[in-house]
């Protein structure tokens, strides 16, 4: 085989490159380049027409100069001229120059496209490929517009050469990725799928990539690819190591094509056709079997190629998550790799096992490898491998092994790389909370976290331990004792002081009986840390001190002296100064009772999803973002929710005529919220809107959560609330600014005031742009009149008396209707309570019936309401009767409530 010699073909170029390489300094290089540029410029401007060879040589030199990092501002025209040469070498340099130095000069684009068009029509496969490669490399919209229609034709034409088909397939893929709208599906799509049967494996290799990309948006159009891919895969997998000749790589038949086919199959659920599925399962088993066979070569290339297929097979098995037998076999195979001498394989096995751990079929099998994984965490030299081990431990953790895993992770934390400490801290905190059997273990774990890696313990973590201790009285004494002990350490982390300060301020009394932790001892211990702490911590400690005055009156004098000291009362920091002044005054003027009320123990926190978990989710980010993100942007903004870009809602909200009608399901969605306040209001492929609301008297507050489900930002995201008709006079909805909450989703707060009774709910209009297309959506805001119900308890005789008082025909509304849901007394009760009225027992003589009472609170008036619901289980019917002092309210409530059963 003839070797290519240096600078073969273009002596001048080789000389120039040598010159550059011989330059001793940057200055010398620049000088040489400038000389060359001047030379080339004069040649291009000269009177003498340049021959093709010279033109090619100079353009190539310009390209070389550009690749060295210098700007090139001429030569484009000469490069375009080369495109129309009949000589391959000249054409190639022309195309290369265009591909590397894309120039959006419109004049040139027209010329370039013209040259490409000629080459595509040339029937010369070499020229056609050059043109296709140029389109694929540039991939601009202009080229898409010019050629998107031609390329499918070239791809499926019967007389196209194999190499042209390969290039055309991938060229089309590039155009589709750049501008999907320019590539219309059509008659050619079916023929593309059949390229999977092509005799030429290179064509199949290129076609699979194209199909994998296209089928993601149009799964049904490409469904036939499943059986074709399975049979192709089956033929490869079952072939002997030499059958495929050119496509056998180190005794492995067609490894890349196999991997691509397995990837394609992961775009679909398991095949429905039993025969196809059987054939596929057979393939997967064959791959697993082959992994156990002795290697056909000792070369790492052989095992890598073989294992590339194996790992992709395991990915498909995990994707299906339906074959317990295969999942367990996959797990056993990965288990062997955990101890392999190749670091790559250990890493990949840990990574792959992580996903296996979340399948119910293989979770137990994964757990059997715990010791090996712990060992990896301790001994692996490559930090990325240790990180995978930590991930896997986290994934395989459950109640049975939580203590072991948490203690190993804590131990690892002491020596862990700085880069991954925060993540380990979060993981430990989550596992400790999730699997805490006794909360003393949880408290110990978190305090250990602070001790070992205090700098990496974020606020979320230590806030959470305070919430949990506050909410669980069985652990409060233990927590007080433990923090007290932890604070004894001569050097303890500031986060420990914060947790200690808070817990002793709340629960220090629980250990005050022990003389070793008597109130003065607790105080002096905390105060010994005071001066070394930051302002925020000192502020927290001042609050602890005032709580001490309440808990332990004997410390009052000492603490007042501290507060009175000039360093506090005249502290330069306004927050500290204010606290000192106010606390000092409070302790002097307030009676013990007042003090006890003001400084009462904190009430339990509302239970909610752990904020730490949310933080970890944010940290992990997406599998892959849509653009290379170097972390300059807040990384949380483009993951999970893709980051909604909020714009403050304008004061001037659009009138009803500006927004579209509510979506067809709006009423149905609204009905879901009549008896409840929280839930998902709306969801489609792009957006999820969650609602959380609370109402008291005639006031309400509603939180709307907008979650972006895509990976790209929404533009001009603007949610507004609109009052149709004269609702404005009945209900005031004040929209607070939209703020990004923690990057996970956008939260919007609405303050609601019911001025008088109303019948129609306000509308919520959401508009934004997604991928350039405007999106608009109108929903009914789940605010119905019953939200302002105040339940009223009353005895039977009061009820009947009032019932009689409201006996005018227009005051009553009644509805008899068929049950839409199973008639369950408990469910009905819950719904009526959710509706807002009080449920009155022992009022109705028939115990099957429900009776309720309440007052609707509006700013202008109060409307008393009585209701009675009579189920008839035999007929599967209900009779609902409402009596209120206002006719429309009776009817409206009756309609709202009747929808619920």
């Amino acid at each position, binding site marked *: *085989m*003839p*070797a*290519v010699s*240096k*600078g*073969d073909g273009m002596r001048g170029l*080789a000389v120039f*490159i040598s010159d550059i390489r011989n330059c001793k300094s940057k200055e010398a290089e620049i000088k040489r380049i400038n000389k060359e540029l001047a030379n080339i410029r004069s040649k291009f401007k000269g009177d003498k027409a340049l021959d093709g060879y010279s033109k090619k040589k100079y353009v*190539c030199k310009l390209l*070389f100069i550009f*690749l060295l*990092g210098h700007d090139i501002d001429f030569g484009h025209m000469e490069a375009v001229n080369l495109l129309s040469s009949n*000589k*391959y*070498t000249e054409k*190639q340099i022309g195309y290369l120059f265009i*591909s590397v130095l894309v120039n959006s000069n419109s004049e040139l684009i027209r010329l370039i496209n013209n040259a490409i068009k000629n080459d595509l029509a040339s029937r010369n496969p*070499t020229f056609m490929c050059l043109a296709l*490669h140029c389109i*694929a490399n540039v*991939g601009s919209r202009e080229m898409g517009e010019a050629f998107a229609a031609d390329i499918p034709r070239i791809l499926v034409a019967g007389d196209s050469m194999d190499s042209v088909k*390969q*290039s055309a397939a*991938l*060229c089309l*893929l590039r155009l589709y990725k750049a501008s999907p709208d320019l590539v219309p599906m059509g008659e050619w799509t079916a023929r593309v799928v059949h390229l999977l049967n092509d005799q030429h*494996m*290179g064509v199949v*290799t*290129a076609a699979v*990539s194209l199909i*994998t990309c296209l089928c993601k948006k149009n799964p049904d159009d490409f469904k036939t690819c499943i059986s074709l891919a399975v049979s192709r895969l089956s033929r490869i997998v079952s072939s002997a190591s030499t059958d495929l*000749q*050119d*496509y056998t*790589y180190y005794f492995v038949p*067609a*490894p*890349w094509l196999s*991997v691509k086919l397995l*990837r394609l199959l992961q775009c679909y659920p398991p095949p429905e056709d039993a025969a196809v599925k059987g054939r596929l399962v057979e393939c997967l088993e064959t791959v697993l079997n082959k992994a156990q066979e002795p290697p056909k070569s000792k070369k790492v*290339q052989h095992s*890598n190629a073989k*294992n*590339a297929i194996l*790992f992709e097979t395991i990915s498909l098995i995990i994707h299906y998550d339906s074959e317990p037998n295969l999942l367990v076999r996959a797990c056993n195979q990965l288990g062997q790799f955990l101890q392999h001498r190749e*670091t*790559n394989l250990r*890493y*990949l096995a840990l990574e792959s096992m992580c996903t296996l751990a979340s399948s119910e079929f293989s979770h137990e099998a994964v757990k059997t490898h715990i010791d090996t994984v712990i060992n990896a965490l301790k001994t692996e*030299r490559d930090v*990325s*491998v240790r990180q995978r081990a930590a991930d896997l431990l986290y994934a395989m953790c459950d109640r049975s092994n939580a203590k072991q895993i948490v203690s190993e992770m804590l131990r690892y934390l002491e020596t862990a790389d700085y880069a991954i400490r925060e993540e380990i801290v979060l993981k430990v905190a989550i596992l400790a909370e999730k699997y805490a059997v006794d909360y003393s273990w949880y408290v110990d774990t978190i305090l250990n976290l602070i001790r070992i890696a205090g700098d990496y313990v974020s606020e979320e973590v230590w806030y959470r331990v305070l919430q949990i201790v506050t909410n669980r009285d069985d652990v409060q004494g233990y927590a007080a004792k433990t923090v007290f002990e932890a604070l004894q350490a001569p050097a303890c982390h500031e986060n420990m002081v914060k947790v200690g300060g808070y817990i002793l301020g709340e629960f220090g009394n629980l250990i005050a009986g022990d003389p070793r932790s008597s109130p003065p001892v607790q105080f002096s211990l905390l105060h010994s840390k005071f001066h070394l702490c930051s302002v925020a911590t000192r502020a927290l400690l001042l609050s602890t001190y005032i709580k001490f005055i309440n808990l332990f009156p004997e410390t009052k004098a000492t603490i007042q002296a501290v507060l009175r000291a000039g360093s506090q009362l005249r502290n330069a920091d306004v927050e500290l100064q204010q606290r000192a002044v106010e606390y000092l005054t409070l302790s002097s003027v307030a009676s013990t009772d007042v003090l006890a009320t003001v400084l009462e123990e904190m009430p339990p926190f509302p239970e909610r999803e752990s904020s730490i978990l949310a933080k970890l989710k944010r940290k992990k980010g997406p*599998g*892959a*973002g849509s653009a*290379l993100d*170097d*972390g300059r942007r807040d990384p949380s903004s483009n993951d999970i929710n893709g980051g909604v870009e909020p714009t403050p809602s304008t004061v001037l909200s659009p009138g009803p005529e500006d927004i579209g009608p509510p979506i067809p399901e709006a009423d149905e969605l609204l009905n879901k919220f009549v008896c409840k306040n929280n839930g998902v209001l709306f969801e489609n492929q792009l957006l999820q809107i969650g609602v959380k609301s609370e109402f008291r008297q005639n006031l309400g507050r509603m939180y709307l959560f907008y979650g972006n489900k895509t990976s790209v930002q929404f533009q001009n995201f603007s949610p507004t609330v609109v009052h149709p008709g004269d609702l404005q006079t009945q209900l005031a909805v004040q929209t607070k600014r939209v703020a990004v909450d923690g990057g996970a989703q956008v939260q919007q707060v609405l303050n609601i005031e019911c001025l008088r009774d109303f019948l129609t709910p306000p509308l919520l209009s959401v508009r934004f742009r997604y991928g350039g297309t405007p999106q608009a959506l109108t929903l009914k805001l789940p605010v119905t009149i019953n939200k302002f119900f105040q339940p009223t308890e009353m005895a039977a005789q009061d009820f009947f008396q009032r019932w009689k008082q409201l006996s005018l025909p227009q005051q009553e509304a009644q509805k008899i209707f068929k049950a839409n849901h199973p008639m369950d007394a408990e469910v009905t009760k819950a719904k009526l309570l959710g509706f807002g009225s009080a449920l009155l027992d022992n009022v109705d003589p028939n115990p099957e019936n429900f009776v309720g009472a309440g007052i609707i609170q509006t700013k202008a008036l109060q409307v008393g309401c009585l209701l009675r619901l009579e189920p008839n289980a035999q007929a599967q019917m209900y009779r609902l009767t409402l009596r209120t002092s206002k006719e429309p309210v009776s009817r409206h409530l009756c309609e709202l409530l009747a929808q619920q059963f």
Partner: protein
Amino acid sequence: MVWIRFILIQNRAGKTRLAKWYMQFDDDEKQKLIEEVHAVVTVRDAKHTNFVEFRNFKIIYRRYAGLYFCICVDVNDNNLAYLEAIHNFVEVLNEYFHNVCELDLVFNFYKVYTVVDEMFLAGEIRETSQTKVLKQLLMLQSLE
């Protein structure tokens, strides 16, 4: 096997011997990526894996003498398939340039692009058969 974002060949000193981009970057961004990849890859020793997380992606790389061959792909893509794709590419270069060395890539930079386009196109693997690629390259070589 989803989509290669870029292929880089760099020497130990950080000089780029090939940069092939499969998504749009401006020139400054390209320069930054080149420097970051160099910083990430050259500190790793032979006992380390051939994979390294890089921004939201990962780099699959292998070192041949003084040259690092790097491919940037999605994090959930098949590591070993790309690792061997690099080797396959290197074997083709070796055959084509007859014991390839760094200087061949410098002096024949415009031919290296042709080799790349035969084997990778639009960020996808185009052709994997060494025989077929070399046959095509020799045919092109014989053209004027």
